[in-house]
């Protein structure tokens, strides 16, 4: 089938989206910061946002690696 590696790449992206969502909902979302009084809420948001941004960067790097691996043959063409 034409474009078979691309179908596989889309499937990998899909599993990473679902896995990343699971990580976000199960581990990062329940995190909470206490002990800073009125700043608890804002610090909580900043820390979660920072983790989310780091995760997105890692996701992009991972996708880039997988892209190079899957399309190695095509890239060298």
């Amino acid at each position, binding site marked *: 089938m*034409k*474009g078979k*590696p*691309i*179908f596989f*790449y*889309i*499937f990998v*992206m*899909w599993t990473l*989206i*679902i896995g990343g*969502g*699971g990580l*976000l*909902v*199960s581990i*990062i*979302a329940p995190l909470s910061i206490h002990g800073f009084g009125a700043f608890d809420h804002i610090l909580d*948001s900043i820390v*979660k*946002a920072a983790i*989310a941004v780091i995760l997105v960067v890692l996701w*992009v790097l991972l*996708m*880039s690696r997988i*892209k190079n691996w899957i*399309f190695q*043959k*095509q*890239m060298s*063409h």
Partner: protein
Amino acid sequence: MLDKTIVGILISAIAFVTVYAITPGLINALTKRNMVVKDYNKEVATMVARPGGPSMLAGILASEFVLYTFFPSTAILAIIITTSLAFLVGFADDRKVLGGWFKPLALAGTAIPIILLGVYLPHLAFPLFGSVRIPELYLALIIFMIPVMGNAINSIDVLNGVASGFMTIASFALTICLVIIHNYDVALASLPLGFVSLAFYKYHKVPSRIFPGDSGALTMGAMYGTLAIVGHVEVIAAIALLPAVINSFLFLSSVKRVIEHRQIKAKPVVHTEDFRLMASDDKSAPVTLVRLILANGPMTEKQVGFVIFRLALFSAALAIITAFMMEIKI
């Protein structure tokens, strides 16, 4: 429910018939005003009318205003305003070539009505695991989502019929997903996008008589993004759009900066002697979805388009599976 079904049929017909009826006149008007561009993938020099955005917007506005008279809601208003603003951004770019950063920034601005009208829930829903509440981050997501979706559709608009055909598949998949998660109101509001794209495809397919231009591509992308936000199906919508997202990702990761496709000097795709498309062997040319599809050998424009449609159908199937998975919690 019967009322909604009847209104759904009515607005679908309005969306389809408006674009189907207006587009031939628009093609003639654009041709008379010499608003035509060369179709570089044709052996014989062919000039094609551009942009088709005005007929698409007419179809969307006609059907959404009718829907609003039956079921008034701020969500429909947000769809109308954001889509119209995105059209204006695209139309400005069609008339005068603007810088690479102009479109993402201006499109980010078109998302502001969504925030001002408050038609969003600051939750991001994931399949199997539930949703996460991200009040501050969600605002950034809204601002980010419209430019990404708009530019993703714009970047896939490289061959005859691809953008409109792809959008037809993705938007009908989104409608099905909205029905699966029981969000019938937004499912209804999403119908015009599918029917507008389908009617436009009639004139955009190989050989194209009209190109959507930036105004058409950004109109479709921005409306799709707005539907994703007001329908609370951000993740599902992104999955249905994966081939276009991959195309943008491949392009950006190879050129490593935000620039317009037309600014690229080394072309990713070249022509064979019989004018089929062939992947360029120029190492400096960007990697794109079409170039990867062509890596196994030359193909006609129509064949490449059908491979992209198969990828769109595959992503649509994954999006529908994801919608069913939303009902399951582990």
